[in-house]
């Protein structure tokens, strides 16, 4: 297999504090030989100076000074490793209650979620939250790792009990693809190498799952969506009339010769070329960045969207959105905000707060007058101009938006369109 022809898998890890996330990531890096000698030396050194009698692999990932001082992970950190089969990007997110926003952030770009459970503790309230967020963000694949099996004598019974509990809860969530694996992150059982301590487990190792899970259908290949980032006009003699639309494909498959429609103008034309750097592309699909030219001179600009004539997204100013609140400042109804959606941006108004979701029980809390940091709430937003959108469940790119504070310009909310 040629290194250049491997796929990229992005995954996120969720677990409560001390469930073993950092250790597991350290183990994956270590066993896949992605750790360099100088990094390992540093970790061995710190482990020794802390008086540990084993090398603490979690030190490989517990990054910043402030967080080492507190001994906790405070933010999303990204890690990288590759095997001959795949390249991986890990969004390492902490599991504290106050950090729902970080988990949502890490989950927004993930193809897969690893949910960690401490075998001694079983399903906790936090586990509900992690599973719910994975399903809310529509991460296509989940792997539940029951960790610290070494501390429960590698007991099949304990494992089966946790799996049954998890399934009972997750059946309400609608995650399509869930796998379960008993592991010991500390000792490496079933992480990269098969465990010799759990011959009752017939399934594959975590690494095998990560390397083989089928991700090519994770993108929407049906509904053609091409939001325009900018218009390329060279202003040179040989390219005087060139007008290329630069952007990244968010859905469907585009080909030269396709009849397309521009939004909001509604003008119809035909794709003349799809190219990048002058090289012609015969089929373009998500997540490719391309430049598109059309047969007719159409005055498109940033924020417009090119779609198929007979398959257009929703067009409107009233959005129903499930929002994760990211700011320490709560929001109330009738607040003015800025909405960023694909390459489009608009002034908007949070018109109504409908309900919050108790992420532990999944119950709705109605009659709310504000939404606070880490809340997940349904709200209606009215934008000043029409947006071209799909439901989040249909397309994670054209179905998502962020809410920005008009005054501070901070990102204060992450929204999924219903």
């Amino acid at each position: 297999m040629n290194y250049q022809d491997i796929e990229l898998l992005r995954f996120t890890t969720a677990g409560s504090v001390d469930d073993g996330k950092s250790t597991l990531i350290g183990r994956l890096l270590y066993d896949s030989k992605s750790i360099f000698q100088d990094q390992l030396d540093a970790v061995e050194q710190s482990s020794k100076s802390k008086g540990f009698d084993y090398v603490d692999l979690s030190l490989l990932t517990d990054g910043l000074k402030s967080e080492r001082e507190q001994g906790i992970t405070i933010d999303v950190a990204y890690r990288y490793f590759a095997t001959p089969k795949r390249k991986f990007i890990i969004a390492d997110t902490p599991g504290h209650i106050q950090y729902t926003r970080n988990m949502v952030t890490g989950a927004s770009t993930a193809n897969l979620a690893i949910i960690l459970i401490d075998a001694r503790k079983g399903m906790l309230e936090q586990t509900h939250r992690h599973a719910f967020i994975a399903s809310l963000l529509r991460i296509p694949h989940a792997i539940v790792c029951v960790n610290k099996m070494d501390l429960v004598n590698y007991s099949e019974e304990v494992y089966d009990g946790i799996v049954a509990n998890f399934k009972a809860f997750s059946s309400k969530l609608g995650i399509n693809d869930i796998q379960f694996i008993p592991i010991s992150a500390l000792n490496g059982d079933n992480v990269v190498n098969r465990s010799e301590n759990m011959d009752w487990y017939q399934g594959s190792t975590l690494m095998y799952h990560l390397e083989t899970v089928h991700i090519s259908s994770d993108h929407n290949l049906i509904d053609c969506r091409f939001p325009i980032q900018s218009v390329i006009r060279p202003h040179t003699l040989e390219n005087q009339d060139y007008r290329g639309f630069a952007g990244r494909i968010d859905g469907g498959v585009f080909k030269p010769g396709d009849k397309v429609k521009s939004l909001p103008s509604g003008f119809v034309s035909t794709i003349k070329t799809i190219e990048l750097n002058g090289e012609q592309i015969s089929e373009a699909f998500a997540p490719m960045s391309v430049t598109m030219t059309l047969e007719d001179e159409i005055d498109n600009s940033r924020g417009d969207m090119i779609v198929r004539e007979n398959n257009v997204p929703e067009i409107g100013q009233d959005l129903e959105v499930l929002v994760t609140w990211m700011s320490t400042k709560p929001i109330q109804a009738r607040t003015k905000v800025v909405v960023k959606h694909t390459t489009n941006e608009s002034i908007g108004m949070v018109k109504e707060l409908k309900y919050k979701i108790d992420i532990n029980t999944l119950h709705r809390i109605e009659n709310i007058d504000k939404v606070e940091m880490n809340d997940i709430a349904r709200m209606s937003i009215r934008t000043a101009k029409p947006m071209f959108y799909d439901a989040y469940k249909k397309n994670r790119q054209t179905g998502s938006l962020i809410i920005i504070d008009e005054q501070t310009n901070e990102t204060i909310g992450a929204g999924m369109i219903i």
Partner: protein
Amino acid sequence: MSNYVINHLKELESEAIFVIREIAAQFENPVLLFSGGKDSILLTHLAKKAFYPAKIPFPLIHIDTGHNFPETIEFRDNLVEKLGVKLIVGSVQEAIDKGRAKEETGADASRNSLQIVSLLDTLEEYKVDAAMGGARRDEEKARAKERFFSHRDEFGQWDPKNQRPELWNLFNGRKNYGEHFRVFPISNWTEMDVWEYIKLENIDLPSLYFSHQRDCVVRDGVILANSEFIKLKEGEKVENMTIRYRTCGDMPITGAVESEADNLDKIIEEIATTRTTERGGRADDKRAETAMEDRKKQGYF
């Protein structure tokens, strides 16, 4: 497997081009920080692809410490001419002469931290509101938490606890007066990805990256090029060695590796088997365990 899959290099390329185009669209005065190293050469290549057949719509800024490898400067000038893009040079020597920065003394003196002064001065002079750089998250612990769009206050400082969350493909470049952004389009690339892509795209690199003979001094286990910028300590001697560079910083602080790898295939093979990180050879990171984090907070790339 369906046909509608792109490989990881193409996906990283697409992501980087998307981010570069966002910078051009969201900011008034963006620039590309060109260090002369392979990562900024890669970034320049991606910027060219992003806007082709138009030219790169923003200038390149190079902070010249005065301690650069001559090969870097020559390469830079050729590249700028070939692309027809504007080059702005910020000079550390000038900052020292003007009394804006104070040269370190002693045998281990480095101009690395002085770069920060020159960089911030140059960004201010040209009213830059977004400076894109070729930093990667896999390079160093403090960078693992860096955003694509990294917000800096009016003093150019980075506050790791006060970064904007980044979700999906949605990058928030809105800012208040005086604030600016550092943007890192190749955040998600590893050293291996960079080399594989350089090979795939046949990107030209300075000769420093390939095996060559050079007079060197070995200091604290780091192989440094002997040059006018380096003062020999007692017991140190100059040896002719067969080396190449994995990164290109300043001459007096960038460590070389002994290597026979004189083409891309050999380099890739060497990286696949090396056991130290590429920054492992940089004296500037060794000063303290949190050296990079501290410099970032002050406004370093």
